[in-house]
């Protein structure tokens, strides 16, 4: 009996310890949900650079990567690569988006109204700033709580449409030709890249790289003279049109940030001079990336618009070949792998050079 009791007692103690451990250790699923909720801007960035819209998977990856966002992007990309693709979505109708934020810097008021939404733009960067906000009065409350105001769901006319009607800005290109609208993850990109390929590459490019290149255009390396016509963030329906049905179905909603940029005149005569466009579109809420992408998109159109390609940001092959952080981090960090075979061949070559020429210069019979 005592033997059995002792064994049962050990089990009970183990179970008691388990209870304590479970209370102490954070539940990984709960932690993942908290990351997805509280670090949502970081999650947005991972989804954008991994080009897979899935908050849970991005949160799981960020947790696994211990907060290293490039590592998290990499994990999500590797997962994405294993997924079968069965359909392309119908082009997103951003005119029908539920906007959380919609601003224009080029005009005082715009169709749909200036809507500030959630932004850090006018906050003071003081630790604890958002915990110490003054209590808001009733009027403010009614204004601030409507995260998704109904009026913004209007099929609004865009600022660009108005300028286009007036002939002041170049016409937006119509639907891309099939050959042009190629997914760079399915068909290898080449140069010159089509606009669709360029935009897809930039949309999933490293935010830091895109930001730096965009910044360089503002400092004189490929100038754009940009104005933000419209910057919007909101949610938009994703629709697919299965060929066997022949009509489209909404399969979900994703958040997007879009930037429409107006840029410098283009044209040889007063009649043909127009503003030009730059475009940025990113998964989630990421205004920095959307603006930077629009600047870079415009800079990369230099050749198309007959400008001199002089600055790094205008150089398509340079920018598009080096903006992917999964590619970049892999190749930079692969220097950690052993290279002793190559290095041995270099040592041998150097020794052979030293051995054959005791002097410092090479003597040639034919007086080269």
């Amino acid at each position: 009996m005592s033997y059995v009791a002792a064994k049962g007692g050990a089990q009970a103690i183990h179970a008691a310890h388990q209870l304590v451990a479970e209370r102490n250790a954070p539940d990984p699923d709960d932690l993942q949900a908290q990351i997805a909720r509280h670090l949502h801007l970081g999650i947005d960035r991972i989804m954008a650079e991994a080009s897979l819209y899935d908050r849970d998977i991005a949160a799981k990856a960020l947790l696994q990567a211990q907060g290293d966002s490039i590592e998290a992007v990499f994990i999500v990309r590797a997962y994405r690569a294993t997924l079968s693709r069965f359909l392309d979505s119908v082009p997103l109708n951003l005119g029908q988006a539920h906007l959380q934020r919609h601003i224009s810097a080029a005009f005082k008021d715009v169709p749909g109204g200036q809507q500030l939404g959630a932004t850090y733009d006018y906050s003071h960067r003081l630790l604890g700033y958002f915990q110490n906000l003054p209590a808001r009065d009733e009027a403010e409350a009614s204004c601030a709580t409507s995260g998704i105001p109904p009026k913004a769901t209007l099929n609004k006319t865009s600022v660009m449409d108005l300028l286009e009607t007036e002939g002041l800005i170049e016409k937006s290109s119509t639907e891309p030709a099939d050959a042009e609208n190629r997914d760079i993850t399915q068909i290898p990109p080449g140069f010159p890249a089509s606009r669709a390929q360029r935009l897809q590459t930039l949309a999933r490019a490293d935010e830091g790289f895109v930001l730096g290149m965009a910044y360089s255009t503002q400092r004189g390396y490929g100038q754009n003279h940009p104005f933000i016509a419209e910057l919007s963030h909101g949610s938009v329906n994703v629709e697919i049109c299965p060929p066997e049905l022949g009509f489209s179905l909404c399969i979900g909603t994703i958040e997007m940030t879009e930037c429409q940029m107006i840029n410098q005149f283009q044209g040889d005569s007063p009649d043909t001079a127009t503003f030009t466009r730059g475009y940025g579109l990113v998964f989630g809420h990421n205004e920095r990336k959307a603006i930077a992408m629009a600047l870079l998109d415009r800079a990369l159109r230099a050749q198309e618009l007959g400008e001199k390609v002089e600055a790094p940001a205008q150089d398509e092959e340079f920018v598009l070949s080096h903006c992917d952080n999964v590619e970049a981090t892999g190749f930079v960090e692969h220097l950690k792998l052993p290279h002793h075979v190559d290095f041995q061949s270099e040592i041998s070559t150097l020794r052979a050079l030293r051995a054959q020429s005791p002097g410092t210069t090479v003597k040639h019979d034919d007086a080269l």
Partner: protein
Amino acid sequence: MPYNFAYLDENSKRAIRRSLLKAVAIPGHQIAFASREMPLPYGWGTGGIQVTAAIIGKDDILKVIDQGADDTTNAVSIRHFFQSVAGGIATTTDTQQASIIQTRHRIPETALRADQIIVYQVPMPEPLFKLEPRRTETRILHAMADYSLMYLQLYDHITRYGRVAIGYDYPVMVHDRYLMSPSPIPAFDVPKMHMNPALQLFGAGREKRLYAVPPYTRVVPLAFEDYPFTPLQAQAPCALCGSTSSYKDEIILDDSGKRQFVCSDTDYCGKTSCK
């Protein structure tokens, strides 16, 4: 998460095999392919891994080497990867037993056979990239078979150093048509590529390029008549097996800098010392 056999879905594998067929049809010519992100980083051999994933079947026997050795960390890691995602496949360290050999930086010392495939991991598939970084330009140079840039480079070495000073990734002409990077194998290994009975496939994941040298294809290192290709041989026989013909790693033995030379190909070395 459950994954498909050999990680990639069947459509992706088929797309890679199509590019490989094209590559075999045009020896030494780089074929663009839609490289996928693999769960190993770019630079670790994602091109080679994708090629292997696309061609491997349940009956294959896989050998993976890095720096000539089966037991280097990256080789172990890639072998484990295929063991875990291509359940049931056999692996080996024996060059003669393997049906697929994936390699980084070496060609085995043991001669390959017609029923074997060697898959090279390639960091920079473009042999001209150090001389012309733009792929738009190098494509034109390849189209016109204009390799004067590379010949000038060799000539420049000769005037400076009295010989061609390229120790690894030695440029080769394939089937008298395309200049090709043999991948960063030592120049010592380049002659093994020439008229090799095995199919040689090359994968560059980050650069999204595949190329191939079909069996029994001419692979000729660039050289001049008066300055022929002269790869450097090891300075001493292997301290373990005594081989004088193999490529050697140089091992530093102590703080005073004593050296020892041993075979880089561990499988070959083990077999030679048994004899």
